């Protein structure tokens, strides 16, 4: 397939040059408007499962590029965690907190407070941060060069006040034991 929209970081453009008056931030409502309307149309065209899959994989791609751009290089788990915490907060994506960080055993439990995608959403009876799941999976994959999967186990949309993710390394003996 000939690609027209393949992502590369320069596509984001020179924001400083392009928006001298409005700057590099945008209203959160607008971000959610774009994301949720896109999700609506995708679901209508391709169904819920495919839409979820697209969101998860878009999150993965974003996580990979984000890691390269802002987190890499990192030498230790501590540096990875503190750098990720710091950049997510500075970019106002969310407040990352770790509950367990057994990276060597293939299991991490973390929360994202004030999450960009879901904090403040109405209660919907389903977890909504599928894009985040992909994004977080990718961060761990890039850091460890192993396959990881993040699963949201609590979400604002299901009544939680914080998004909670269980991130596990796939095919990790320690996890499967």
């Amino acid at each position, binding site marked *: 397939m000939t690609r027209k929209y393949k992502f590369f970081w320069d596509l984001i453009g020179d924001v400083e040059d392009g928006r001298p008056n409005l700057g590099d931030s945008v209203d959160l409502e607008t971000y959610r408007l774009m994301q949720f309307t896109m999700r609506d149309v995708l679901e209508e065209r391709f169904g819920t499962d495919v839409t979820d899959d697209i969101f998860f994989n878009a999150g993965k791609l974003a996580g990979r590029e984000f890691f390269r751009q802002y987190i890499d290089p990192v030498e230790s788990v*501590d540096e990875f965690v*503190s750098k990720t915490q710091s950049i997510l907060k500075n970019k106002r994506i969310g*407040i990352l*907190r*770790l*509950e*367990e*960080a057994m990276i060597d055993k293939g299991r991490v*439990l973390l*929360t994202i*407070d004030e999450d960009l995608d879901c904090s403040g959403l109405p*209660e919907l*009876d389903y977890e909504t941060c599928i894009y985040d799941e992909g994004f977080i999976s990718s961060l761990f994959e890039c850091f460890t060069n192993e396959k990881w999967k993040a699963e949201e*186990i*609590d979400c604002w949309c*299901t*009544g*939680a*006040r*914080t998004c*909670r993710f269980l991130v596990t390394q796939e095919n990790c003996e320690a996890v499967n034991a």
Partner: protein
Amino acid sequence: MSSQRNDNEWIALIDTFLRLPRIPDDLCNDAELTENPNFQKLHRYINDLRDLSAALSRGDLQMFAYTKGYILSNMKALQANLRHLTWQTKQVAEGDFSQRVEFLGEFSDSFNEMTTKLQENNLELERLANVDFLTQIPNRRSAMQFLEQTFLLYKRTLRVFSIMIMDIDYFKSVNDTYGHDIGDKMLKHVSTTLRGVFRASDMFCRIGGEEFLAILPETNLAGAVCIAERVRSIMENAALDIGSAVPLKQTISIGVSNALPGDEKYNDIIIRSDNALYEAKENGRNRVYTNPPEDVGALLKSLSRTNAKRRQSRTADDSPPDEHGGSAAPPANIAE
């Protein structure tokens, strides 16, 4: 819900549910309750609330409640925060003092104040562990760490370095004649006088008693001899005012050695320098000896001639003097 119970009975039942830790046995088989999905959902929710609140009240942070809902979620958020706090505390215990708490009100301030103070104390302890209390220059521990790193770098890259061990001559007689207070002043005097001789990248430290060590990266034996001779000469002329008519002058003897390809551990260089120092003492003190043995006088003359030639050939060059007072570019035979 088609209820066989009246309102009062339902109130009593809910009251029972809220009070007791578990559903009573006689209600487990109650068809009206077991067959009512709404009641079962509420029952699961209350049970999870009950279990999670009980776990939290005894400090157990391991219980996971999978039921959704506002009240339970608030408790789960508290649990998540406490678990994060536990993780942060472990990080602090391992020396990561960057941890700060932002989500637990007054406790956050106390925790953050604690980590700040721990960090300050830790830095001070680290400084104290590496500094000689009397002279406030690096101590033996610090010197050995530096030497080990420098030696490892040498083994990997063959970047030359030398060391010199300096010992105050007849120091015992200073203590015996003038007392230990003057002895201590003499040690401070030597460290203060010599501190400025070395480059910022060198390590000058007191390794015990009246003995000092200098580690000189990027300096070969000839270069080290040049510095040692300068040190010897400075000390020969430096006087310590002890309140008497005649200021106290004390010379030092110096043993110099450099890293050699056959060295297996940094201690090999120390032993050679120690042997050179012994020779310096044996041969009259107030002098510089090397090991491997070299004619120090000839070495200095040769170095002086080379430097003079370099100066002549560089008359148009305005290079500023380096920290040793020589030219900014090292003499040809200092950096091999």
